[in-house]
C-alpha cells in the first residue's frame, strides 16, 4: 500500500478522541483507589494485636513510610513515563532510588544479626503482599494500556515495585514479625520477583 493511501485511510477514519488525562490526575485517581482497597483489605483481614504498642516505634514508622513512599513514587513514575515524550523527573527518580536503597540497607544491616523466621510464615507474608498489591497493580496496568509507555522494561519494574511496596506498607499493620531478616527476605525481596513478573506483564500487555 502506498503511503498516500495510508494517509487517506487514516484521515477518513479519524474521529474525536478523549485526551489522556495528565499523569498527575491519573496518579491521584489510582492512588485513591489503591488506598481505599488497601484500607478495606486490612480492615477485613484484621490488624496485628500489638499495633497500639508498635505504632510509635521509630523502626515501624520508618519502614512503613519508606514502603509507602516507594509504592506511591513507583506509581507516579509509571504514569509519567507512560506518555511517549515524557521523562521521569530527576527528583522522583532519585527519591525512588533513595527510598529503596535506605530500606534495603537498613534491613540488610540489621538482618544479619537476627534469626529470621520459619519459611512457612514468610511465604504467607509474601502471598499476603501479593493479594494486597495486586489490585493497585492491575489498575495501573489497565491505565497504562490506554497510554503508550516507551520503556516497557522500566514500566514493568515500576508496576512490580508498586505492587510490592504498597502491599508491604499495608502488611506492616497486619504482620507482627518485626524481625529485620524476615522483613528483608519476605517483605522487601519479593519486590524483585514482582518486578520480573511486571516486565513480562508489560511486554505482553503494554506493547503499542
Amino acid at each position, binding site marked *: *500500500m502506498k*503511503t498516500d493511501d*495510508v*494517509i*487517506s485511510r*487514516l*484521515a*477518513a*477514519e*479519524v*474521529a*474525536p*478522541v*478523549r*485526551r*489522556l488525562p*495528565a499523569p498527575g490526575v491519573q496518579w491521584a485517581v489510582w492512588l485513591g483507589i489503591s488506598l481505599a482497597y488497601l484500607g478495606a483489605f486490612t480492615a477485613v483481614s484484621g490488624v496485628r494485636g500489638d499495633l497500639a504498642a508498635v505504632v510509635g516505634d521509630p523502626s515501624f514508622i520508618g519502614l512503613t513510610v519508606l514502603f509507602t513512599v516507594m509504592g506511591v513514587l513507583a506509581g507516579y513514575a509509571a504514569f509519567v513515563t507512560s*506518555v*511517549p*515524550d515524557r521523562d521521569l523527573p530527576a527528583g522522583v527518580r532519585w527519591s525512588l532510588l533513595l527510598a529503596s536503597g535506605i530500606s534495603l540497607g537498613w534491613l540488610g544491616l540489621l538482618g544479619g544479626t537476627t534469626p529470621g523466621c520459619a519459611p512457612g510464615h514468610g511465604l504467607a507474608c509474601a502471598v499476603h503482599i501479593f493479594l494486597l498489591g495486586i489490585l493497585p497493580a492491575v489498575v495501573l496496568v489497565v491505565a497504562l494500556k*490506554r*497510554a*503508550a509507555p*516507551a520503556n516497557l522494561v522500566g514500566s514493568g519494574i515500576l508496576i512490580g515495585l508498586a505492587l510490592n511496596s504498597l502491599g508491604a506498607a499495608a502488611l506492616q499493620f497486619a504482620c507482627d514479625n518485626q524481625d529485620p531478616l524476615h522483613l528483608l527476605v519476605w517483605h522487601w525481596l519479593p519486590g524483585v520477583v514482582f518486578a520480573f513478573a511486571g516486565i513480562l506483564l508489560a511486554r505482553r500487555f503494554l506493547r*503499542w
Partner: protein
Amino acid sequence: MKASLTGRCEDLPGNEPYYARFRAIVQPGVTAAAIFRWRSPPGPFILFAETGGSVTRMETPTGDQQDGAVWAGWMVRAQQGDAEAYRELLQALLGPVRSFIQRHYPGIRDREDVVQDTLITLHRIRHTYDPARPFAPWLFTIVRRRCIDHLRRSIRVQQRELQEEAIVALAAAPERDPEAEGIEVAEQVLASLGEREREVIRLLKIEDLPVKAVAAQLGLSESNVKVIASRGYARLRQQWKQHHENR
C-alpha cells in the same frame, strides 16, 4: 510573543494559495499577525504586531518551534475529529519522519514501511498527545520506537532465514549411510599404512590375537610387534583426523 496564539486564520487574497494569514488581538489596540505556509512543509511564519497604522516585525520562533507549533495545531484539531487538518498533519510529517529515519537509522532498508507504521501508530495513540507540550519530541519518540521494533524484527527474520537456509542445504545434500561411510573411510585409512603395520593391526584388532601369537606368526619379537602397532595407531589417528577436517 508565542506562536501558540489562537485567532482567525484566512487565505491571503492574491497570494499563493498555500500561504495563510493569522490574526489575533492580543491587547486593545495591538493585533498580532502571522503569515505562514499552510501546505506541507509547514512554516516558516513571520509574526507582526500592528498598532494603529504601524506594523512591527516581532521576534519569531525558530524553524523547529514553528513546525512544532503548526503540527501541534493540526493535531489538536485532529483530536477533535477534523479530517482535513489530520490529512495536512500526516502529509507534513512525511518529510521530517523520513529524514529522521535516514539520519538516525541508516541501516533500515524498508524505510517507507517504518514511515507507514509510524503514521498508523500515531493514529492509534493520538489521544496521548498533550497540546501543552511540544509536538516534535512526542512524534520522534514514536518514530524511534517504531525504528527499534523494525530493526529487532529484521534481525529475527534474518536469523530465521539463515536457519531455514541451513535446513534446506542439509535436506538437499545426498543421503549418506553413516555405517557404510565409516567402513569406507576405515578402509582408506588402513590402506595408507605400510604392509607390516596393516598386518599387525589386522591380527591384533580384527583377529583379536594376543601379542605373543602375532609375534610368533610374523616371526617378530613381542616388543617389535608393540612398537609397530603403536606406530600404526598413531598414523591411523592422524589419517582419521585429517579425513574429518577435510569433510
